[in-house]
Structure formats: C-alpha cells, structure tokens
C-alpha cells in the first residue's frame, strides 16, 4: 500500500504535455545543426543566460508545485487506506515548516511580536494590552529587543556561507566537467571563464547563480526561525504564499498563451493572407469580440463554469481539483478574449508579407497556401509573436490580480499573486501600513517577468538573421560579400 495517492490535476497534465513537447522539440533540434545554431546563439548572450538561471529557479518551484498527491491518513477504513482530502504538492512537502507555522494574524518581516495588540494575561494575573510574542517567529529568543538583530545577522550569515559553499561546490564541479570536456586543465578553464573568454558566457551564469544561491541560502536559514516576509491576515507565512503563487503565475502565463496562440496565429495570418471575405469575417469576429467588455465575458463564463463544477461533485472530489479546474477555465477564457490584439497585429503583418516577392515566387512555383503560410509567413512573424507573448505574460499575471478583485479570478482557496495583492490592497490604507504582502508579491513578480523579458530578448535577437550581420565578419566564400 502506498503512503500517498497521486493526483493529476488538469493543469498538471497540461504542464506535463508541455514539458514533453518541449523535450521532443529539443531532441529534434539537437540533431539538426542549422536549427541548433540560433539556440547556440541564445547561449552566447550573457543577459539571456543570467536570466535563464533565475528562471530555472522559478520553473523548478513551479514544477515541484505541479506534482500533487494525497497523503494517507493514520486511520484506516476496513484495511483500506484513507487518504487526506488535502491535496499536497512536492513543494508543500519541502516547505512543510513554512506551511504549518501559522501565526494568529499579521506580523512584520523578522518580527518577534504580532502586528495587532491583544489583551494578554501575564503569569502574575495582570492583564495587559500589548503586542504578544509570535508562536513561531523568533520564538527561540528570550529578549527579542536586544537579541533580534544579532541573531538575524548570525543566522543570515550562516545561510550566506552555506550558499557560497554550495555555489563553490557546483562551480568547481562544473568547471572540472567543462575542462574534461574541452581537454584543458581546470585552472586554464577557470581563468578563461573569469576573463570572459568562453563562448558561452559562463561568468554571467556563475555570477547569477552566486546571487541566487546566496539569497536562497540566507532565506532558507532565516525562514527556519523567522517569517522572512512576515505573515498575512490569517497568519500564513508570506514567503510560502509567494512560493505557491509562482505556479499559478506560470500556469496562467503559459497555458493562456497556448490557448490564445492558435486563434491569433491562424486567424490573423489567414485574414491578412487570403483577404476578401475571409478577412471580412475574421475582422468582424474580432472587432465584435473586442468590443464586449472582457471582464463581463470572463465573469459570465467563470460563474457558469462554477455552477457546472458544483453540480458534479463526483468529477471534482477535492477542493484542489475544483480550484484547479477553475484555473484552467480562467486560462481558456483569458485566452479566448485576449487573442484579438495579436491577431490584428499579425493580420497587418501578413498583409504586408503577402505582397513580398518571395511569396509571389512561391506562388509562381504553385506552392500550396498552407505551405506558404507555414514556411514563409509564420517564421517571419515569429518575432512579433514572441514579443507579444512575453508582453502578455506579465499582463496576464496582472489581469489575474484584477479579476480576483472582481471575484472572478482564481478560486479563493488558490494562492496566487493576484489573491496576495488583492488581500494586501485592503491593508494599504492602514496605519502603520501592512506592506510586506504586496512587497513580496512585487519582488517575486518583478524577478519573474523581468527575467522572462530578458530571456525573450536574447531569443529574439538570436533568431533574427538580420541582427547577426552586424556581428559576423563576412565569410570569405563566394568572393563578394557585404558587410
């Protein structure tokens, strides 16, 4: 018998499919030199590689949070194991301490006391209104006023050192691996990396990794004894909330894009390429769709879906499953309502491209419309798609926050940047201000979106053949070549 029962939520399944597709694509590209070349150029961009390192941390958190299961309970029902109704993820297991150490209500980062005054009964029987000590935060300190700062520094310092140690181990191991791969001595490889003389900018990767590991080390060390980002209204650790929000953000950013892309690509290119009545129909559809207030459409859809879910408890047996299906439908409806902008852009681009002479030449060869679209038009609009998708990524994460405010966003039980911001919003007017929820959400979102933007920039540059001309020396073959 198992100690747990695996649960595959809908969004989990889609994420697995996405990973599988990415893996197949990578395998396909690896074997073809000319397809691999632009990706190698991505690997040559320092900012791209540094942001990739940060992204890896985010994606790792998101993936850990995408493996769900229901733990078995102590109690047994006629020999059959009974599983908890709580669906946990691997991330929950890793952060069990964070998850379970809830305070009563708000507390500031690194605080030893609660943020609200309470009437506390002292051992001598007197009742005093004061800020009570936290149950977990800084609980090990006798006199927080005097000891707190020193203890935070000591713990943080230990965490930093641990981070540096881990970094050294990784870096030395990796450098040795590189040296073995290129048949050079470790020290030569090492100095080449620090001089910035390697093809792949390992120096940038190492620096980014150092920053991440030092931050992670300090956070881990401190999180064991303090609430690094404070606690929220119901006393949950904000760091835990932020970590859990990563998956929601990634799911909304990626799955919505996947829903939106086929509409935008197919319809936009078709409208621009075929023109005539096809163009008219598609234009009327997206003009109509974009004149309906998106929030209205989303609200109607989400509420309808909610009724459907609630009338079928057999299909969605846990809270997590219900919250998840709501997230999925949110992605779908966001995708359905947000393709019009990109579609309009692509239509214009396709209108321009269809008059290009290489498309005319393809027509002269009798190349079919489908092939013209996939081989000539699609690759030439990909840069627009890439930019639009990355821009949308941050926009979608934000619109999730707005929708949560209206009450049609993700399920209230699901932790997301939107719900965090929404909860924090209410406390911004308070004096003294409760700022840490918002700050945590802000820092995490900023890091995520900024890295995604920088990485997408590197990808776009690498895939644009015209950008390359400036860097490459004209090859000697052919005799005449233009600089």
């Amino acid at each position, binding site marked *: 018998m198992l100690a747990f029962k695996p649960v595959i939520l809908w969004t989990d399944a889609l994420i697995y499919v996405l990973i599988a597709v990415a893996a197949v694509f990578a395998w396909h590209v690896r074997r073809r030199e*000319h397809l691999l070349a632009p990706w190698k150029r991505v690997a040559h961009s320092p900012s791209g590689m540094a942001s990739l390192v940060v992204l890896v941390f985010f994606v790792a958190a998101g993936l850990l949070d995408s493996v769900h299961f229901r733990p078995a309970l102590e109690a047994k029902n006629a020999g059959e194991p009974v599983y908890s109704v709580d669906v946990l993820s691997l991330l929950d297991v890793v952060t069990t301490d964070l998850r379970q150490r809830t305070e009563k209500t708000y507390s500031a980062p690194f605080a030893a006391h609660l943020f609200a005054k309470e009437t506390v009964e002292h051992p001598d029987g007197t009742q005093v209104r004061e800020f009570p000590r936290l149950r977990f935060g800084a609980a090990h300190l006798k006199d927080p006023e005097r000891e707190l700062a020193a203890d935070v520094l000591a713990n943080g310092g230990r965490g930093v050192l641990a981070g540096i140690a881990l970094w050294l181990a990784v870096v030395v191991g990796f450098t040795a691996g590189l040296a073995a791969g290129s048949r050079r001595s470790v020290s030569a490889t090492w100095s080449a990396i620090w001089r910035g003389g390697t093809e792949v900018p390992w120096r940038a990767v190492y620096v980014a990794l150092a920053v991440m590991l030092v931050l992670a080390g300090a956070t881990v060390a401190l999180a064991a004894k303090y609430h690094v980002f404070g606690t929220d209204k119901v006393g949950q650790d904000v760091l835990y909330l932020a970590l859990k929000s990563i998956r929601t953000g990634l799911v909304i950013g990626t799955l919505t894009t996947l829903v939106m892309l086929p509409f935008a690509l197919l319809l936009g290119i078709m409208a621009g390429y075929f023109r005539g009545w096809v163009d008219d129909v598609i234009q009327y559809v997206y003009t109509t769709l974009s004149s309906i207030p998106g929030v209205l459409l989303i609200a109607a859809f989400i509420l309808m879906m909610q009724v459907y879910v609630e009338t079928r408890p057999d299909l969605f047996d846990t809270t997590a499953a219900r919250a998840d299906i709501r997230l999925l439908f949110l992605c779908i409806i966001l995708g359905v309502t947000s393709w019009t902008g990109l579609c309009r852009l692509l239509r214009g681009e396709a209108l321009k491209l269809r008059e*290009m*002479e*290489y498309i*005319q*030449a*393809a*027509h*002269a*060869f*009798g*190349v*079919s419309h489908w*092939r013209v679209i996939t*081989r*000539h038009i699609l*690759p*030439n609009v990909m840069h627009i798609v890439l930019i639009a998708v990355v821009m949308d990524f941050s926009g979608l994460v934000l619109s999730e926050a707005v929708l949560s405010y209206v009450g049609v966003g993700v399920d209230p039980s699901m932790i997301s940047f939107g719900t965090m911001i929404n909860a924090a919003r209410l406390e911004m007017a308070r004096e003294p201000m409760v700022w840490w929820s918002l700050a945590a959400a802000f820092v995490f979102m900023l890091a995520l979106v900024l890295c995604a933007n920088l990485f997408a920039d590197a990808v776009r540059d690498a895939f644009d*053949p*015209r950008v*390359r*001309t*400036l*860097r*490459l020396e*004209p*090859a000697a*073959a*052919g*005799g*005449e*070549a*233009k*600089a």
Partner: protein
Amino acid sequence: MSAASRRELLQVADLRTRLHTGDAVVRAVDGLTFSIGRGETFALLGESGCGKSMTALSVMRLLPEAGQVAGGTVRLDGTDLLALPEVAMRGVRGRRVAMIFQEPGTSLNPVLTVGEQIMEVLDRHTPLRGDAARRRVIELLEQVGIPDPVRRVGEYPFHLSGGMKQRVMIATALAGEPDLLIADEPTTALDVTIQAQVLELIRSLQARTGMAILLITHDLGVVSEMAHRVAVMYAGEIVETASRERFFSSPAHPYSRKLFDSLPRQGKRGANLAVIRGAVPPLTREFGGCRFADRCDFAWDLCRGTVPPAVALEDGQTVRCHLYSEPRAESGGRRDQSRDEGEARRAEGPASGQRSAVSGQASAPSLAGSEAQLLKVAELKVHFPIHRGLFKRVVGQVMAVDGVSLGLAPGRTLALVGESGCGKTTVAKGILRLIPPTAGSVRFAGVDLAGLAPAELRVRRAEFQIIFQDPYASLNPRMRVVEIIEEGMTALGVGGSGTGRWQEVDRLLGQVGLPPEAKFRYPHEFSGGQRQRIAIARALAVNPKLLICDEPTSALDVSVQAQILNLLKELQERLGLAFLFITHNISVVEYLAHEVAVMYLGRIVEHGPVEEVLNRPKHPYTRALLSAVPVIDRETKREVIRLQGDLPSPANPPAGCHFHPRCPQAMTECREHYPGVTQLAPGQEVRCFLYGSGETTAS
C-alpha cells in the same frame, strides 16, 4: 587646384567620417578632399556604399546618431562648418546650403500642405511673413514649373505625382536662396521622362540663380548631362577628379574605366560586359594600399603595399593610382587596356569564347520565327475593380493592362519597356496567373493558361518562372539557400529527392557562379548581386522554358548589373531559355533584347525588332522616351523631346489615344479614337495615327 583664381565656395579637406555600428567602426568617408566653385556642378559618382551620401550628410552636419566626423575641415566661403555651434549651423542649413533627397515620396510631410512646407523655410530664413510669404511661395512653385501654383499651395503631397513632389522639394530647397544645393540622387526614383524634366529644371535654375550644385549620383548618364566636374568615389575616398569632358573622353583610374566598360550598350551585344570582380572591401578595416587593388587588373605589389598618392595629370585631372605615379606605369596602363578586357572575358568561363559566334547567329533568324511561338499572349486584360462605400460597390476599373498581345519564340528575348505605372509588371503577373486576368488568352506551348483549372496550372508552372526586381525582398530571410532553391522542386516534384536533390542544388549554384557551401547560408549573408544569382538559381531549379525577368538589375550597381546580364545571356545560350525582360533601362534593352515592345498606360504602342525600334522609333512616345534617356556620348547629342505632365491614371485614361494629352504631334482624331495596329514591316507594329489608321478601335 585646377583654377586657383576661381573663388571656391565649398572646400572640403581631408574629411573623415566614422560610423559606429555594433562592434566595428566603419570608415564611411576616409580623407576626402574636394572643392566646388560658385555656379559649378560638381558630381560625386560612385556605387552604393562608397560613402557619397555620408559625405553630403557630413557637410550638412546631419549625420545619423552613430556617425561622427573624425577629422578634416569643411569650409563654406571660408567659414569652417564643422567648428560652428549647432545654433549657427541651423542658419546655414536651408539658407546657405540646401539639400534634396532621393525619395520625393518620403521627404515631404504628408500632413502639411505644400505651401506650409515651403513657408517653414521662409519663416526660418527670410523676413517674409503673411501675404508676402505666400506670394513668394507661389513664385517659387512657378519657378520649378508647377502648373497652377495658386491652387497647388493649399494641396497636400498625396495630390501630387512623384515628379511634382520632387519639384516641390526643389522649391523648398530654393526658398532660402542657397549658395550650394546638395542633390542626393535627385532623380533615381523617377522615370526617365520625369528625370529629364527635373534635370532640365535644375540646370535652368542654376543658370538663373548661379548656385553651386553638389550632385550625388551613381548614374554616368546623369553625370554626363549635368556635371562640370566629376569626382569618382570608391570605398570612402575619391579616386579620380576631372572635368566632365576629360572624364568622359579619357577616364584615368582603372575603376572609372571599368565602370564605363560595364555599361550595357548596343555596340556590345555580341560580347560580354566587363565585370569588376569581387566586391567593395568592407570599410571597417585600415587600408595599407590601394583600395581597389584586389579588384584591379593592373594591380601589382606596390598597389597592395603603398597607398597611392593623388597624382595630378594635365587639365586639372587628378587620379589616385600608382599607374600614374611613375611614367613607365602610365604607358603600361594605357597599353594594357585591351589585355584587361581579354582577361575579364577569360575569367568569365570557357563558354564565353564561342559566345560571340553563337549570338551572331542567334540574331539572324528574323521575327518570322513566329512559327514556333512559345508564348502567345492575345488581348490580355487585367482590370482591378475599385470598391467604394459600405457594401463595396464596384464604381470603376483600374485598367492596368488593357489588351496586350505579345509573342515570344524559344531562345529569344522580348523586352517590355515603359515607365512605372504603365502595367509592365501586371502583364508579367497576368501571364503567370499570379493575378487572374480579366480577359484575353495566354497560350504557352499551345495551351491556354488563362483557362486552366488550378490543378492543371500547377503542373505547368515548372515551365515558366519569374525573377523579381528587388533581390532583398525576393528571398525569404528565414530560409537557407538550399531550402529556397528546393522549394519549387518540392512543390512541383522535380529533381528527385534526398541527396539527389542536394546535388542538383549544388549544380544550380554552380550554374549561377556560387560555391556549393553557399547553400547552408541565409540570404542576408550575400550581397545584392549574389542574391539575384540565388533568385535565378531558384527559378532555374524547375527547368523552365520561359523566364520572366521583372527589372532584375534595376536595384543593382552597374558593375553588378553587368555580372547578372552576362549570366542571363550565357544561360539563354546554354539552355535555350526565352526571356520576357521587363525594364525601364533602355541600355539593357539594347544589349540584351531581340525584340522590344513599348508599353504606355496598359497598351503596347510599338513593337518590333530591337534595332528598328531603338534606332528608328516610330511612335511619338517611344521617341520621347528614348530621347529622355541621359546619354554619355555628348557628341551624339540629340534633341530631348520634353513630355508635358505625368502618366495619367489607368483608372481614368484619357479619351482617344491615351498618349494624346502629352503628345507633341497630337491631331484631332487622336482625341477621339484609339489608333489601331499598323503593320510597318513584318513583325513591326505601331499604334499611331501618324502611320495610318489601322483598324481603329474605340477606346
């Protein structure tokens, strides 16, 4: 230098301009020295990328962000422009030095009226205001020959044709009464008849105002028509300066001579055009020797090791070439000119030896060879409906092609000549059915293409292919060369599959003179000429019998144009291809074509063998068109027949003969009927009442 007594207006000394692009510094202008006298037209001649425009922008101090003048002086009447503060420079621009640009369409602001744009200059540089300014604007428009200037003042640029816009640009430039006018390729974007008008205008304005002109151009013909003195620029420096007479009678620098040799001309029909091998060296590197050495037929060790000094020859001619720095070399250089051509021909490949003999024969079979017509176009019409209103009602037709008939035999070249907007390209697309024809028939090898179902047409597409004008737009930038060439083969199922096809691609690349390694590279890694070769290889991949060339060389420099024309000629002889050659460049027609058809506003007005049509043109339009072409030999100076106005709109062609409003010989019946076809000789036809009425057709 030449006339020290003459007061120089502009003196540029050792001008050096750098462009900071990416990680390399481009020495766009590298040590330029020249001077322009008052009332003089000084032509800066050179191929694209040699730094002509950068020179102009440096003088105006209008360099792009990445540009920087690294040294030298630019003196206008003794004042060093480069030392002036920006505020003072604004007083110079427009007032002392004015500039007109190449593209009239984009150098006028579309949301300002013509009057407002000229007024802007008056506002800045003259005390004229209000009514006085308005009167001055009208006066200026009158000066540049714009009809009905009072009305035009309030019109927007989109109301005007290209030639009119360029006139307005000139009026704007003249508004400040500048001492120096910089004209950067002022007529390159215009048709020959309009070009003749604009050049004539600039000349007459110069005679009236006595301003100096710095004319920047790549066109030897324009230089010959306009310039007093010529400087040839190559790779950022001036390689030769001479008076026009001297330059055209005895060009000194090997590069200048090559430029002349690479011009296509009727006299060179049998032979190959001279080509300058290689390409302009990248300007990112330092030059230790002569910049032209790698492409020069006379280069020896000295040329590669030592920078040649500017040598003064007689009559004010200076040249930067070692051939002239010592007496021995000079005579050697002159003597070797014939050897040079011989070498160039040898370098072209083994096929060239027999070429002249073959083409001599090829011109022998006369037009009577119509018994085996490959392509027979009859009464082809392509009309585009004009939609208006909410329900897209058809309110009219743009008659882009309005009854064109052509015939083309295998192995022959038919040139379709006409100004832009006359429907040449639409004829090509109509024949290929890239645009569905409205009426008429296109019989290719006996089958009417216009009536074929799409599936049947696809099968036949291998037999006729097209090469486009712009080699930068005709290759998909995201595809490698091999994929570009394979595309047609895959679509039409020719050339086998797998490795067999790659061998075929290698063979095709070899055929157009590119190495097999080229197939794994992307189009942007090639120069314009190489890209055009790739486009030719792509068309040849499906073994066509007919190749439609839509201005294949008009986007290329003369020396590269020569390479492509040589290649096309060689391919025709080797593969027996028929060419439908669409162009506005008469010299290319003279060199390549067997027959010529002249198009005006959707119809062919004259059609016949190339010698007849070009040497003894019948139709007044053909005559005007030919006379407007700038010629290099001033001895054979002919009377330019100036056409009034512009090409009318094909949506609303004039009644009667379409040409009558511009025709100097228009008669009353021209206004009423469209002339029918008059057969002058077998194969020569003209549609003009001057040669009998033919079968008159109502227009």
